[in-house]
C-alpha cells in the first residue's frame, strides 16, 4: 500500500530576531550575568562567533526571552508556545481542509511535557476533522529527527489509518538558561530557533502529493552526543565533549550514510536538516551534490535557523512547492540518539 504526503503546514510563529538583535540582547544580559570578567569576555566572543553573519530565527518566548526564570516560567513559555503553534497549524488546515477526517493525530515535541498533550490540544481545535475515536498520542524525546521518524511510523501503520496528521512543535527557546555560563547552553541558544509544522499523510494520492518511498533510520553509538542537561531550574541544551562534538557528529552521519546506502542521485531534490553549515557542506560533498542543491536547506537556516525537527518539514514544503510531477525528492536528518534518518519520495 502506498502512502502520500498530501500537505505540509508550516506557519512561522513567534518573534523574528536577527543575529544582530540576538547579539544586542545577549550583550545587555551579559552585563547582569554573574561571572568574572575574563569568563564573560571569552563567552561573549564565543557567542559572537555563533552569531556571525545574516541569519534569523523565530522566538516564541517573547521579547524577554533572556529573563525566563524558574520552572514555572519555563513551563508557562512552553505552554504558550504550544497554544500558539497548534492554533497556527489548525488555521492552515482549516483554510484548505481535507475532505475526510483524520483517523489519528500524533503530537511531536522534544522540549516539554504538559497535559493536555499536543495531539489533544490540536484535536480540540479541529473538532470536525478529528473525531473522538481518532487515535491521539504524543511522541517525545525524538530530537531533530522526530518528525521524519514519526512519518516512518505512520507509513508502517495498518491500512485502517487512512488519514493521519502529525503536528510538530519545537519551542527550543523555552530551554534556554540565561543564568548558565555553560557553552553548550549558549551554543543551543544561538543555534536554534523556534518552529512548528504539520504534515498530513494519506493512503490516497492528490494534487501535488509526495508518494512515500523508502524511509529508514539508524542509531549510532553517540548516545551521549546531544542531550538535555539540567540547571538550577529547568532543562537546558547539552552536548558531550564539546571539543570533539563536530567531528564526532560528522563521523556518525558519514557512518550512517554508508549503512543506509544513500546514493548519489543528482536529479533528486534534497532536504537536509540544517544542523549546521559545516555539516551541510560536508554532507553535500559526500553526496556529490552541487551547491545549488543545498539552497533550500541553506536558505531555511538563514531565515529560521535550526528549528529542530520542524525544520525538515519547512524545507520539504518549499521543495514540494517547486517540484514537477515525477520529481524524486530525498531527505536526510540527524540528531540526538544519535539518529540519522533518510527518506525518499516521488512528487505525484
Amino acid at each position: 500500500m502506498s502512502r502520500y504526503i498530501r500537505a505540509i503546514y508550516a506557519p512561522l510563529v513567534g518573534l523574528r530576531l536577527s543575529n544582530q538583535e540576538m547579539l544586542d540582547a545577549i550583550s545587555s544580559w551579559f552585563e547582569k550575568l554573574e561571572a568574572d570578567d575574563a569568563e564573560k569576555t571569552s563567552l561573549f566572543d564565543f557567542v559572537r562567533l555563533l552569531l556571525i553573519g545574516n541569519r534569523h530565527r523565530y522566538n516564541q518566548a517573547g521579547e524577554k526571552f533572556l529573563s525566563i526564570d524558574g520552572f514555572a516560567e519555563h513551563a508557562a513559555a512552553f505552554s504558550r508556545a504550544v497554544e500558539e503553534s497548534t492554533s497556527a497549524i489548525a488555521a492552515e488546515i482549516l483554510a484548505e481542509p481535507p475532505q475526510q477526517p483524520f483517523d489519528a493525530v500524533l503530537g511531536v515535541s522534544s522540549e516539554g511535557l504538559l497535559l493536555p498533550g499536543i495531539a489533544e490540544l490540536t484535536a480540540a481545535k479541529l473538532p470536525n476533522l478529528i473525531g473522538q475515536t481518532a487515535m491521539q498520542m504524543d511522541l517525545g524525546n525524538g530530537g531533530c529527527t522526530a518528525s521524519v521518524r514519526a512519518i516512518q511510523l505512520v507509513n508502517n501503520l495498518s491500512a485502517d489509518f487512512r488519514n493521519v496528521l502529525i503536528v510538530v512543535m519545537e519551542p527550543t527557546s523555552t530551554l534556554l538558561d540565561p543564568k548558565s555560563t555553560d557553552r553548550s547552553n549558549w551554543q543551543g541558544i544561538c543555534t536554534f530557533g523556534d518552529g512548528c509544522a504539520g504534515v498530513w499523510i494519506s493512503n490516497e494520492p492528490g494534487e501535488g502529493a509526495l508518494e512515500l518511498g523508502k524511509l529508514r533510520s539508524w542509531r549510532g553509538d553517540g548516545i551521549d552526543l546531544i542531550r538535555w542537561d539540567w540547571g538550577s531550574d529547568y532543562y537546558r541544551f547539552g552536548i558531550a565533549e564539546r571539543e570533539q562534538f563536530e567531528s564526532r557528529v560528522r563521523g556518525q552521519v558519514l557512518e550512517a550514510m554508508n549503512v543506509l546506502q544513500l546514493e548519489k542521485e543528482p536529479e533528486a531534490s534534497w532536504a537536509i536538516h540544517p544542523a549546521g553549515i559545516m555539516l551541510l557542506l560536508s554532507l553535500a560533498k559526500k553526496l556529490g551534490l552541487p551547491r545549488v542543491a543545498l539552497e533550500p536547506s541553506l536558505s531555511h537556516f538563514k531565515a529560521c535557523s535550526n528549528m529542530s525537527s520542524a525544520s525538515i518539514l519547512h524545507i520539504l514544503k518549499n521543495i514540494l512547492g517547486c517540484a514537477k510531477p515525477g520529481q524524486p525528492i530525498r531527505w536526510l536528518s540527524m540528531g540526538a540518539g544519535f539518529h540519522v534518518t533518510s527518506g525518499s519520495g516521488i512528487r505525484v
Partner: protein
Amino acid sequence: MIDRIAVLEAMKEFFAENFPNIPRDHIEAMKASDVIQQSLDLVEFVLHLEEKLGLEININTLGEKLITKTFGELADELVAIGSGSQ
C-alpha cells in the same frame, strides 16, 4: 607537521578566489573577523584549509579565535593543531 608558510599560502588562495579585494600581502596582521563576516564564508574558509592542508579542523576547537585572532595567529594555531600539540 604543517608548515606555517603553507598555511598562509592556503589562506591567500582562499582570499584570491573569494575576497579578491583583500590585499593578500598583509593578511598576517589582519583580523579574521574584519574579512569574514558571514558564517557560510567562515565555514568555506575552514573547509578550504582542511582540503589544502589535509587536516581535520574542528570549529569548536578553534572557537572564538576564528574571529578574534589575526590570520597570522590563526596560522600559528593551525600549525599547533597539525603537530598534535592542540
